[in-house]
């Protein structure tokens, strides 16, 4: 092993370590949820726990906000993928029910990514 090898190992290990620290920052929690449906577009705060009914293409979707998180509770769709997607609490998280045309997008101060890439 030459001196250059030792320096390379040292530098790359330090570089990767710093990169890991920057990359593995905990995700930022969202403040608001934006709800899209064929009829309306709502912006609701995640501060208060509540249940919301949204009328979609097939019927009513029930959405629950609890402890700064949001999820679909019930939906008139067949597959129930929206319900199985579970809780969303990070900026940029996205939940959608395609058959009922209802979707949620979480918004916050520091957007890590937008729902297009999500």
């Amino acid at each position, binding site marked *: 092993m*030459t001196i250059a090898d030792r320096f390379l190992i040292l530098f790359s290990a330090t570089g990767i370590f710093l990169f890991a620290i920057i990359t593995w920052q905990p995700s930022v929690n969202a403040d608001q949820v934006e709800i899209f449906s064929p009829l309306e577009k709502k912006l609701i705060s995640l501060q208060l726990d509540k249940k919301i009914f949204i009328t979609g293409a097939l019927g009513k979707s029930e959405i629950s906000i609890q402890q700064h998180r949001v999820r679909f509770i019930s939906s008139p769709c067949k597959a129930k993928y929206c319900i199985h997607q579970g809780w969303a609490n990070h900026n940029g998280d996205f939940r959608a029910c395609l058959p009922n045309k209802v979707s949620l997008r979480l918004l916050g101060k520091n957007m890590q990514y937008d729902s297009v890439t999500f």
Partner: protein
Amino acid sequence: MALVLQPSRDDIRIAWLAALATSIHLLESTLPSPLPGIKPGFANIITIIVLLRFNWHAAIWVSLLRVLAGSLLLGTFLSPTFMLSLTGAICSLLAMGLALQLPGKGFSAIGLSIVAALAHITGQFLLAYVWFIPHQGLWNILPLLLIMALILGIINGIICNKVIARLP
């Protein structure tokens, strides 16, 4: 009139070494991987030995022939797997070419192997990110891949040094 191609001694040597690298590549592809993207990369040992014993030109031939022959035998030619493999090979060859320019004693096989491993995974990652999965979440896996590349690069480099020491 039949066209006869007379292979030179170098051609035959490159073919043998590429065949050896391809065999290692094939054997390695049967190993289970804990995570997509983590792979020992033992085939690169041959590339590095060729680079140190012969030259960069020969290393390019061995590496690219290995990718081509390996993909044909595995049935992944021109598939995304092949594209990733090719990108990794090209990136590591370029990086090793640059690393060889270092003046003085320079890198041993260990340094070259680390440079190659890091360039290989970075290139593959960027291709995967730009082309296949343009999702920010993908970045979370990169530090892990780089750590594994560093560790496996060091191991491969040590193997290289041992092999070179035993070569006539």
